[in-house]
């Protein structure tokens, strides 16, 4: 009876019971959403990136105009690209190294391990909020905690962290690195999966703990590091909120992150066409960087199943 129903559905009810039909029905939220909120907006965005489009009037086709302007006539754009690359190149490795070290620290088998993990995870849980950005701004204010603390250590002059073009970005880098928690969790989960026997064998052979770290832990963890590197890099390119709240891009555009400039172009200067073109350049930039990381992965990512023994 079941066979008959699945093969030849005569009624609507029978039709709805077919596996493939069920499949489409259950996945319809994604299919509809994918078209409505991804594909159609993307096509539209591609179209207006070739237009001069100030939101009040209709879009006017200008060909490659926006893209040419970006690279030849807009020093702020170039600035935002360099600032963002600088920020990503510093903050992402810093965050990952820190996450790795802390993950290594908190996976020792003690009764407090899970408490420690939560403690170190807390900053990244709340770090994305506006509240923390505002507090961070106060911490690095001229008469804030950081300067007072430095004064205690004997450094007399207070530093204008947020007023100086070469310091302001470090305030944001620190805030990013501080939120190492979710990477750390992923590393900690990865560390637990490394078989104990590897370490035992190494200990018998007389390997120091530093050697164990570099020759066992790091290679075994490399797929997880790779995954983290990709995700954090992508996130790094899209940092917006913290710069928007803490520095607003200043001083002198020294923290004008790409996403921030894009936001200003679209919603302060209302140049929707130009901002869309910037979004596409961002997409290409992220894709290229991700591809580079993927390409390099053959050299340093170690998959147990394929290589090795």
């Amino acid at each position, binding site marked *: 009876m079941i066979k008959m129903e699945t093969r030849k559905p005569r009624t609507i009810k029978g039709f709805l019971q077919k596996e493939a039909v069920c499949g489409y029905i259950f996945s319809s939220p994604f299919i509809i959403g994918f078209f409505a*909120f991804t594909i159609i907006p993307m096509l539209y965005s591609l179209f207006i990136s070739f237009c001069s489009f100030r939101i009040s009037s209709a879009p006017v086709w200008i060909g490659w105009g926006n893209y040419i302007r970006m690279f030849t006539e807009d020093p702020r754009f170039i600035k935002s690209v360099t600032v963002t690359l600088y920020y990503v190149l510093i903050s992402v490795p810093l965050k990952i190294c820190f996450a790795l070290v802390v993950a290594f620290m908190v996976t020792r088998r003690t009764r407090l391990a899970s408490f420690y993990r939560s403690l170190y995870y807390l*900053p990244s849980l709340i770090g994305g909020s506006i509240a923390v950005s505002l507090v961070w701004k106060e911490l690095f204010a001229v008469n804030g905690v950081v300067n007072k603390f430095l004064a*205690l250590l004997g450094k007399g002059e207070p530093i204008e962290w947020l007023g100086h073009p070469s310091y302001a970005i470090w305030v944001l880098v620190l805030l990013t690195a501080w939120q190492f928690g979710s990477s750390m969790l992923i590393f900690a989960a990865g560390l637990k999966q490394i078989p104990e026997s590897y370490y035992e064998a190494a200990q018998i052979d007389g390997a120091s703990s530093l050697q164990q770290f570099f020759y066992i832990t790091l290679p075994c963890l490399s797929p997880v590091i790779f995954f983290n590197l990709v995700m954090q890099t992508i996130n790094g390119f899209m940092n917006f909120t913290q710069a928007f709240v803490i520095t607003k891009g200043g001083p002198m555009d020294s923290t004008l992150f790409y996403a921030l400039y894009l936001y200003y172009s679209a919603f302060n200067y209302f140049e929707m066409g130009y901002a869309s073109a910037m979004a596409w350049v961002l997409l290409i930039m992220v894709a290229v960087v991700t591809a580079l990381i993927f390409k390099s992965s053959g050299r340093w990512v170690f998959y147990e199943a394929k290589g090795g023994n």
Partner: protein
Amino acid sequence: MQQQQLSGSYIIPKNHNYAKRIFYHCFVLALGLLMIYPVVWMIFGSFKTNYEILNEALKLLPAEFSLDNFIRGWKGFGNITFARFFQNSFVLGISATAGVTISSSFVAYAFSRLRFPGRRFLFSCMMATMMLPSQVVMIPQYIIFRNLGLTNTYVPLILPSWFAKAFFVFMMMQFIYGLPRELDEAAIIDGCSRYSVYSRIILPLIKPALITTIIINFYWTWDDFMGPLIYLSRAQKFPVSLAIKLFADSTSKTDFGAMFAISTLSLLPVFFIFLFFNKYLIQGFSTSGLRG
């Protein structure tokens, strides 16, 4: 556990090991406290007077715990109190989260248990959306919603959530893969439709994944700043995240205490989640990350 201790005690004499352990705990604890210092400083700061905040920044504890900052902060701005903003945030969080949880579980069931043409392709499309910079779709989405006259409503902030989010679909799929297939096959042979398999077998069994979804998404919506910033311009409609920013812009030059107090209050739901649902958070972030 036993093995570790054994191998440890072979190499290092016992009392040395003990000192090392104490050192380890002190170090980890100290570094951890340093990490959460800014948060603790903010919480205590919300009880301090503005004079204390400005002139005695290094002192952690307030001279006396006073609730004045909270009272001043709660008044908000422009005759709108923070009660309103908190209510808005809850409305947004609950309606977006309900949508994400329901729709993502639908899609996860389809992708992990049902065979249909194009499934693999659709799955790859979904994974690709996770890598897509949101800026690419942000501007056109804004223009579309604007032309539909939906700015200053919650529709642009809630509606996309009702069409599944890749992150959660992926997480739920990992969970469903862990359930024995025989369960749903047996149910189908017994005459159960695939809809009842979903609602009576899969759904109850992936409850932990659903809870994780609810928690993480609520927390994401609560924290979301860019969405409300773009779509909402009337203060009546602001969620807490946006209201705090405006509040800080308008008063922080003079009233740090109130700003800290409101910041602390705005983090309360997150602290609550952290204290009571920490297990689910950690599970969510570590399992879905592993198989990327």
